[in-house]
């Protein structure tokens, strides 16, 4: 009889323990502030890699949107998301090119520079070339060189695949050719970075550019070439021997909450960020505090 009663008591206690644990877990989840970020794919890659540490160290839950579809989201989405920030709905954006002063003033944004990212020059894997001199790269994109044999390759017409994003902002592809009008006209124009990679993979004659954080799929026939013998690394960006790059930034709007401000600081200068930057050859723009 006593054993039977004890058994029932233990069952009831077990149920209460589980119930209490579930309630406590739900309450804890509800109390953790959620910060939402959205924007272009390159910054998303590095944010996504350090997200576990950011969430753990700053006691927040981070929702990131930047590579959900083949088309990605882009810098405009990052700016839009930053403007949605208000108390109780903390948001931020991430962009791959520096915003214009007019844009920052008009929208009331704050730009938090993160890193410089090398723009790598990609060609089809069947292309025998391993290096293209910088002037010839620019000449190719301008259309002055139209056949690969002119740069030591096979006798094939050159096919340019270009995503002419953010034409009003400085940096990015403008480091190759300053204006869109100067680019070769008979090119393949696409709307997403993934299409740039797919286009170069499809055409044996293809050439394009993309950020160094892009992760290629094994099925894609892509090869990265050096520019005038210089590889696209952070160090070569620092010593200015590699000429093509884009600037990754976080943008915010209005007053920042402490967790968000801390998180941005961590992204700009934390140890984990340094490790990711090293992995993708990014050049941090904010020095590590002493």
């Amino acid at each position, binding site marked *: 009889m006593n054993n039977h009663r004890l058994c029932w008591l233990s069952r009831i206690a077990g149920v209460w323990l589980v119930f209490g644990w579930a309630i406590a877990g739900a309450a804890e989840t509800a109390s953790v502030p959620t910060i939402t970020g959205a924007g272009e794919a390159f910054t998303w890659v590095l944010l996504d890699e350090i997200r576990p540490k950011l969430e753990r160290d700053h006691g927040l839950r981070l929702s990131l949107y930047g590579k959900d579809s083949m088309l990605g989201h882009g810098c405009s989405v990052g700016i839009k998301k930053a403007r949605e920030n208000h108390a109780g709905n903390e948001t931020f954006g991430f962009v791959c090119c520096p915003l214009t002063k007019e844009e920052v003033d008009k929208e009331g944004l704050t730009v938090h520079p993160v890193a410089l990212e090398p723009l790598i020059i990609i060609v089809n894997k069947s292309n025998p070339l391993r290096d293209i001199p910088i002037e010839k790269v620019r000449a190719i994109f301008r259309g002055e060189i139209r056949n690969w044999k002119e740069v030591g390759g096979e006798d094939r017409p050159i096919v340019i695949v270009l995503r002419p994003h953010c034409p009003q902002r400085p940096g990015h592809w403008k480091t190759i050719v300053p204006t869109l009008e100067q680019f070769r006209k008979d090119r393949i124009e696409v709307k997403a970075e993934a299409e740039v990679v797919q286009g170069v993979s*499809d055409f044996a*004659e293809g050439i394009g550019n993309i950020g160094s954080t892009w992760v290629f799929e094994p099925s894609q026939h892509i090869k990265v070439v050096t520019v005038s013998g210089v590889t696209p690394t952070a160090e070569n960006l620092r010593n200015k021997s590699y000429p093509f790059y884009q600037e990754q930034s976080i943008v915010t709007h209005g007053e920042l909450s402490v967790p968000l401000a801390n998180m941005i600081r961590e992204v700009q200068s934390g140890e984990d960020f340094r490790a990711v930057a090293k992995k993708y050859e990014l050049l941090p723009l904010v020095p590590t505090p002493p």
Partner: protein
Amino acid sequence: MSAPRTYRFRLVLYISVLLLFLVAALVLSYHSSNNLVLKEAENNAARLAQQIEGQIKIEARDLVERAKMVRDNTGFTSYLYIAVSLGTDSGALRDLYQRQFGWLQIDRSVVLSRSGKVLIGAQHADLSKALIARGLMAGAGEHQFYHEGQHGLEMVAALPINYRSESLGVIAITKTLGAAWMHVVRQMSGGQLFLVKDGQIVLSTIAGTRGDQTFVSSNDRADINGESYLVRRVVIGDDPRLPQLWFGLSQQELTAHLNEQRNRLLALVLAGCLGGLMIGFLMLRNFSAPLGRLMKLIEEVGAGRLPEIRRVHSHDEIGYLTNRFSEMVTSLREHQDEVKRTQELLQHEATTDSLTGLYNRRYLYNLFPKLWSEAMRSNKSLALIIIDIDHFKKINDRYGHPTGDSVLLHLAIVLRANCRESDFLFRIGGEEFLILTSGDKEGGTQVAEKIRGTLEREPYSDAECIIPVTASFGVAQADAGDGTGGLEQLMQRADQALYVAKKGGRNRVVASYPQRESA
């Protein structure tokens, strides 16, 4: 003539009319359905052929829309632009096409550059030639036409492709109107399809049709494989070199369907007849039969009979009526029995002496003619005995009338004890009794003597006294001369004999002489 007015007759009449109507409808439909179905089938064949034409037009529009889907894809046009303007390998274009449009439900696709170079679909040379022959690379508008190539007859949608106002070439996609398509259309229409070229069937939905089967259409009819078809041409394009598409409805199939429908109708009519008969039977059983029984009972009651009517246990109106009628007849019967008993009592009282229970004089006069007639008819004799108690007045005077009545009863008992069942005993006066017995005068004398002896031996006795009782007997025999009204004469003769007996000292039997003898 009035019998047919009965409910049963009407019911049988109605059911018969219903059955007759059903059978007539069946016969009429059998005779009229053949021509009707054939005429309707001809209209149907034309209608279905038009529907197939409409379906083909819809499929053609759908094919054009699919071609537009490819043409309007910016990735595809920019790849094509590069391939055409730079002369690159078309592999990238083919890969993109396969990646983005490989799922399209089409049979063949060809992309030609404006110079006629095949960029996609090099294996479909016949289609490329057809496009070139039609001059479609020049950037003209949409084209939808039919083409007979290595895949047979096919529907083609061809669209020019432009990029930045520059003509790049043409894309053509096809849908083959082959066996699979024809079978789908057959499923939809229910008829057969024939693809005919130069009078020969090159493809059909009929299993086992040879490729070289001749197709000759006359008056919208054609014989194929020994089977007759109602046929209509399905117009697809105006090129006379193309095979013709024909739609046909098999007359054998139509007849089979007709017979199937007829059999269903027959089954329905039979079921209707059976239902009608069953309803009639139930109505007769539930309404007419009980009504008939009730009518028969009423007739019996009307005829004066009051039969025993069993109660019924049904709770319907007829059951209620029958039970009420049964109660009424039972009540009548009980009343009739009572009347009969009263009649019998009155009859008894009218013919019987109340003291002795013997018949009275009135009944003697009623009975005698019958007995006399019967005796004469059967050639038998009839004897009459008159009995008179000796000195009865003295008994009355000495012992009183009650004792006198008891003496009379004593004599009645003695008479009953000594007479046969067939003898008739009467009390005709105060102390006078009469016996009618079959037999002659001697027989009557013997009976009288027997009674006289018994009476003499057995005196009347009661608690107070013993009274010796004797009687005198006069016997006479009826004869043919008496007639039915000869009772008076017979009784007179017996009275004369009785008188003689009285005169002779009483307590004796004297027989009379016959009338003729005495005369």
